[in-house]
C-alpha cells in the first residue's frame, strides 16, 4: 500500500506544475544557440549578397563529403559560387564546415525538421540553403554572446531550463 503511494509521488508532484510536453508541431522547441541543425548559407542582410566567397573549404573538410561546391570564375577575376549542394542524408551535423568557413557564410542553422517522403528531398540546393540561412540572426547584430555562449534569453525558455538543469526538476 505504502509502496504504491510512494510510486505515485512524482505523479502527484507534477500534477500542480505546468506541463513539460511541447505540443509539437503547433509548438516548436527553442534550440540552443549552438545547436547544430542543417548547415545553411547566409547572405549579407544589408546588400542581400551571398557571403560565400566560394573557397570550397567546407566541401574539402566535410568528413562525409556531403557538400558539393561548383565554382565558376567570376568576371572580376575571383571565384563565384555556381551551385552548392548539400546531401543532408549523408550529413552528420559535425559543424566542421561552419568552423572552417573564413567568412561565416555557412553556419549550422536551427533547422531540425528534416524528415522527407523521398530521398531526393534530402538534397538541398543553394537557394534552399540560403532561405534557411536567411532566418538566422547575424552574429554581428546579435552580439558575440549569441554564438559564444548560452544567452540568458534562451536560458529562460523551457528548453533552456531543461537543458541547463535549472528550474524543471
Amino acid at each position, binding site marked *: 500500500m505504502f509502496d504504491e503511494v510512494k510510486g505515485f509521488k512524482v505523479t502527484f508532484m507534477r500534477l500542480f506544475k505546468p506541463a513539460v510536453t511541447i505540443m509539437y508541431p503547433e509548438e516548436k522547441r527553442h534550440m540552443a544557440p549552438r545547436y547544430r541543425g542543417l548547415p545553411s548559407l547566409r547572405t549579407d542582410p544589408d546588400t542581400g549578397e551571398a557571403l560565400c566567397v566560394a*573557397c*570550397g*573549404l567546407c566541401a*574539402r573538410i566535410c568528413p562525409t563529403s556531403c557538400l558539393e561546391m561548383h565554382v565558376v*570564375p*567570376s568576371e572580376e*577575376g*575571383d*571565384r*563565384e559560387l555556381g551551385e552548392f549542394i548539400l546531401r543532408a542524408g549523408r550529413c552528420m551535423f559535425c559543424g566542421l564546415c561552419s568552423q572552417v568557413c573564413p567568412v561565416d557564410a555557412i553556419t549550422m542553422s536551427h533547422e531540425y525538421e528534416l524528415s522527407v517522403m523521398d530521398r531526393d528531398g534530402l538534397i538541398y540546393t543553394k537557394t534552399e540553403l540560403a532561405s534557411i540561412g536567411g532566418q538566422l540572426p547575424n552574429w554581428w547584430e546579435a552580439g558575440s554572446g549569441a554564438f559564444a555562449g548560452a544567452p540568458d534569453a534562451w536560458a529562460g525558455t523551457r528548453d533552456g531550463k531543461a537543458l541547463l538543469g535549472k528550474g524543471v526538476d
Partner: protein
Amino acid sequence: MVTATRTEQKMVTGSINGQEVTVPAGTVILEAARMAGIEVPNLCFQPLMRAWGSCRICTVEILGKRGGLIESCATPLGDGMEVLTHSPGVMEARQFILQMYLIDHALDCPTCDKSGECYLQDNTYLHNIHANPYRRPKLAQAYEHFSELIDYKWDRCIMCNRCTRVCDEMIGVTAIESAFRSLESTIAPAYGEDLTDTMCTSCGMCIAVCPVGALTDRHFGLHPWELDTTETICGFCDVGCTINVEANRGIVRRSTNLWERGTNHGYLCERGKWGQEQVQHPGRLFYPTLRRREGPTGVFAYETTWDEAIDQIAESLAHYQGEQFAFLASPDNTNEETYVAQLFTRAVMASPNIDRSMSGAQANVAEATVRGLGVDVSNTNSMQELFSDVKAGLVVGPDLGATAPVASYWFYHSQIYREAQYVVISHDDYPLGWRSPLFLKPRPGTTATLLNGIAREILSQGWASPAASSDSLPAFRASLERFDNDHVSEVTGISSENIRAAARLYATAGTKPNTENQYPASLIYQSVAHAGIDATGQSPYGDPDEITAACINLAIITGNIGRPGGGIASPRGSANFQGATDMGAHPALLPGGLAASSPEARLRFEAAWMPQWGEKATTSNGFVPVRSLPAQKGLSVRELPDAIEAGRIKAMIIGNTIGGRYEPLDARLMAALEKVEYLVVTDAYAETPLGNLAHAVLPMAMSMEKDGTFTAFDRTVQRLRAAVPPMGEALGGIEIFARLARRMGYTMAYRNPAQVMDEIAKLVPGYGGVTYARLERDGLNVPTASYADAGTPILDAAHLLTPQLVSARSMP
C-alpha cells in the same frame, strides 16, 4: 638537369651540410644541393632560367672567414666551400624574410587558385611562421585583366620576376615586364595594353611559373586538391610535350606543367596550356551521325547509335572491297589507332590505298625527305641536343614560335646560355629572327634559291665537310653551278655578304676548323610543312619540296647528318605525324617502313593478320575474306583527287585532323570527295567541312580522352593517357575499327591499346623495344629493336638513313 652554367666541364668539390658534393664548375649551390638530395627552399629560382636572387629564401650559410649568409641560387659552388643549408642563422634569416613578405601579401588563401601549391604557403609552413610581429593594413587591389586568359593580382605578387624572365628567355616575346619601383612595383604589359594586342603568345607560362597566385588563369576556379591529375602528352603538335591534365567530375579543368619532365622539361605553349578547351569544345561531335541524300538538294542527317552506324557502314563498305576503297588516316591519332586503321584497310578492305590525311605542303615535305634521307623522318636528331651540342643552325620557314613553340623555347635558351647562333630565314617577323645574328627575308618564292645559294657558297669556300664527299656530290655541285652568289643575291634580294655570312655561320658556326670534327655541329629546323599553300601550290616560301631537299643537301654537305647537335628537323604539325608514317599509313610502306612490294615483308604481316579472318565474311553481299595483302603501291593523298575523278576510288574513310575543323584538306581533294559514292569520316568535331560531305560521321575521342602512344617529331614514343572519358559517345579509333572489322567478319580482339602495342612490337622492326611498361616514366626514341635496346636518338647511315644529295632544280 640542364642548367645555364653547365657548359664548362671542370669539376669542383665542396661540402653541403657535411656531405661531399662534386659538381661541374659554375653549378650554383642550390643546384648542387639538389643533386645531393638536399632541397633548399626558394621562391624565385626556376630551372633553366637565369638566377635572379630576389626572394632571398634560398639563403645559405657559407662557413669560413669570408663566409656568411648568401643566396644559393646565384652563387656557384666553389672548391672546398663548406655550406650549411639549414643552420640556425639561415633559418632565422629565412623566417625574417618570410615575415616581411607576409606583411603585404594578401593572405586570401581560401579564394586563391594557387592555394595548396603555393611556394609562399609551403615556405610559411616549412619555416613555422605562425605569427607576424610586423603588421600594417593590407593594400588590397582588384584583379587586373591582362587578357581574356590571364589575370594579375598585385597584392599577392612577391616581385620575383619569374614570369618576366620566362616571357623573355623562353618564349622570347617579353610581353610582360616589371614596372615602377618600391611599393608601386608591379608586373605589367607594355603601356598597360591588353596582352592580346602585344607580342604575347598566350602560352600561360607566366601563370605556370608564378610561385604565388599573382598571375592566374581566368578560366580556372578550383583548388589543386580537388583535381585528379594525369600525366599525358599534348595532342596538338608533334613536339610531344608532357602535360599534366587535371580533371574533376569528368571535366578537364586545366593543364599544368611537370617541371623537368618530358621533352619539354615542363614548359608549354598556348595549345598545350589551353588544349582542354579544344577537347571540351561545345562543337564536339557527340553521336554517330548518318546522312541520307534525299533528292537533288535535300540532305537529311540524323544521330544514331553505334550499332546502327556500324551496321550501315559495314554493309555499305562491303561493296567496295579492293582498290576502289581508300583510307586517309588522321596523323592526330595514336600509333595504335593508326596501326588498326591500316590493318583495316589492308587486311579487311584489301586495299593498298592508305595515306596520312595531310596538306599539300606536308605531302611535299614528306616526299622530299624520303628522296633525300631514304625514310620519312621528321627529325634525324633529338630536340634535347639543343641543350648540349648545337652550336649554330638554320631556321627556315614560318614562325617557329607558332608552329613548334616549345622547340623554339630551346632555341632562345641555347642562344642565351650556350651562345649558339642561328640564321633565320622566314617571312614572319618573330623574336627568334630579331635575336639572331642573321634574319633573312628572301623575296616570295625564293627560299629554296637562297638555300641553294648558301650550299654553293659552302662548297666554293671549302667549308664543306670532307666526310660529305659521295658519288652524288659532283652532280650536285654541277646543279648548283648557276646559284652563284651574285645571281642568288639578285633573285632573292638578300645581299651577297649576308648569303656568305649565313653560309659561314651554318657551316662553321663562326669558328676555325679543328682536326677532330672539322666544324661544330649545326642543325636545321624547317617548318615549311606549315606554310600555307594555295590550290596552285604557291606559298610565300616557294615549293616546300625544293626547300626540304635544299635543307637536306645542306646538312649532308656540312657533315651534319648523324652527329649530335646536327641533323635536320621538320616539324610537320599533327601530333603523331611521325608515328602515322611509322605505323604504315603510307601507300607503299607497311608498318615499320617495310616495302609492301617485298614478299617477305608481306608474309611477315600476313602470318599475323590473316588468321583473324573467319571462314566467310558476315556482311550480306559479295564481301570475301582476304587471304593475302595487296602488293602494289597504293594511291597517295596527292593522287587521290584524280583517281576519284576517274572513278577509281568509290568509297573512302577519312580521319579528320584537328586542323580540319575549319580548314578543309585541300581544295582539289574536297571537290573530288563530292563524287565519292560512300564517304565515312571519323571526326572529333561536328559540322566540319569534311564531315558535312560524309555519309557517315563517327565521333572520335581526342587526345586527353584516350590511351595510346604518340611518336613525337624527334621519334620519341611517349605514352598518352586518358584523363577524362570521351565526350558524348565518342570512341577511340581502335574500338571503332575493331567493331567495324568484327561486323565484317574479321576478328580484332584488342581489349586495350597495350595489346595493340604488343602486336606492333612483335611485327614492326623499329618498335621492337616499345612496351607500355618502358614508357611509363619516359619516352623512348625509335628505332629500338628490342627490350634491351635503349633507343636511337640520332639517326645516321647505320640507322635507317640513306642520305642522298638531290640535285637542285634550275634557277627560277
